[in-house]
């Protein structure tokens, strides 16, 4: 899973390392969302959709890795619950200029127990804060890796994925 706030580069990250152009799947919320979605001012709108981008990497003849970018809006937790099951782990992309945007994702993965790493996406190649500063700011324990990345570059995205799987493996062996 690739999580993070709106516009942090989730789809860019998926696209950098996916063998296909990222695809988009949509789930439809119907009357189940009544009372959650305020439809008062939207007249006839009775459905709303939540989109999710994803990519795939064929690792072996019989092994395919799917990368799902989580829906950015916090209220689509139900989609996350679906994705967590069977997931190896999550990369939480962080734009350090908008640190608070990643709080919901970090909280979610801490609660769900899914292994995650935090990847600081350097916009315009800048990393204004180093991982130690972010670790302190986010109150992240020493076990969770914090790395810097550039979501536009395949090598960076691949390296972030390797860090995540190594971390997930360590968590399983512990």
């Amino acid at each position, binding site marked *: *899973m690739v999580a993070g706030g709106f516009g942090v580069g989730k789809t860019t990250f998926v696209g950098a*390392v996916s063998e296909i152009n990222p*695809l*988009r*799947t*949509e*789930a*439809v*919320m*119907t*009357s*189940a*969302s*009544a*009372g*959650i979605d305020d439809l008062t001012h939207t*007249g*006839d709108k*009775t*459905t709303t*959709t*939540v989109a*999710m981008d*994803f990519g*795939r*990497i064929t*690792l*072996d003849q*019989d*092994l*395919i*890795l*799917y990368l*799902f970018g989580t829906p950015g809006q916090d*209220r689509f*937790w*139900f*989609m*996350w*619950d*679906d*994705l*967590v*099951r*069977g*997931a*190896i782990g999550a990369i939480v992309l962080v734009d350090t200029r908008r640190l608070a945007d990643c709080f919901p994702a970090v909280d*979610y993965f801490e*609660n*769900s127990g*899914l292994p995650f790493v935090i990847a600081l996406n350097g916009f315009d190649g800048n990393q204004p804060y180093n991982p130690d500063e972010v670790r302190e700011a986010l109150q992240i324990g020493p076990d969770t890796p914090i790395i810097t990345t550039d979501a536009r570059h395949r090598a960076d995205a*691949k390296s972030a*994925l*390797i860090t995540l*799987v*190594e971390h*997930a*493996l360590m968590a*399983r*062996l512990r």
Partner: protein
Amino acid sequence: MATPPGGSSSGNWSYGPGQGQNDGSQNPNRYNFPSAPSQRRQQPYAPQGPQGPGPSPYDQPPAPRIQPVQPQRRSPEPSPAGAANNPLVRPYAMTGGRTRPRYQLAIEALVHTTAQPHQMQGQLPEHQRICNLCREIKSVAEISALLTIPLGVARILVADLAEAGLVAIHQPGGDENAGGQPDVTLLERVLSGLRKL
């Protein structure tokens, strides 16, 4: 998420208790929002067949691997105000109004057509499109995206095809004792595969 199409003997996962959308005490969904129709997991997908470590799922018809679930007979949901005037075709029209699949399919479950062309005659157009797409192996997510069918609808249509014996489904591997999380062997394979990229 990693899905080995070959499938392990424990290649099915179950949606255990405590994962339901309405269990506020254990649910990470702290806000307890209502779920989309496809999310309801009241029918656990639990492999109960006698198959132990056996031949590859490719070698056997898919039907015995899947525990059929009775189609849900639900009372019609109250129509939201204004629905009668909505000119659009409702997304679940092509499923005959059903909002739950007969089996729980993982979003990354792989689907592969086993049907011969003559078997496709008389099938619904959407079913035929899925079969045509899945001549090469595809995930449920890809079917949804490539055919622009909402995810919940794609799950129902794929489950229909599986029940009719027209597609084989390979649910992702996972350690059922660990809530369906990938086991160590799978993680090691993924890591090795990523390093070779």
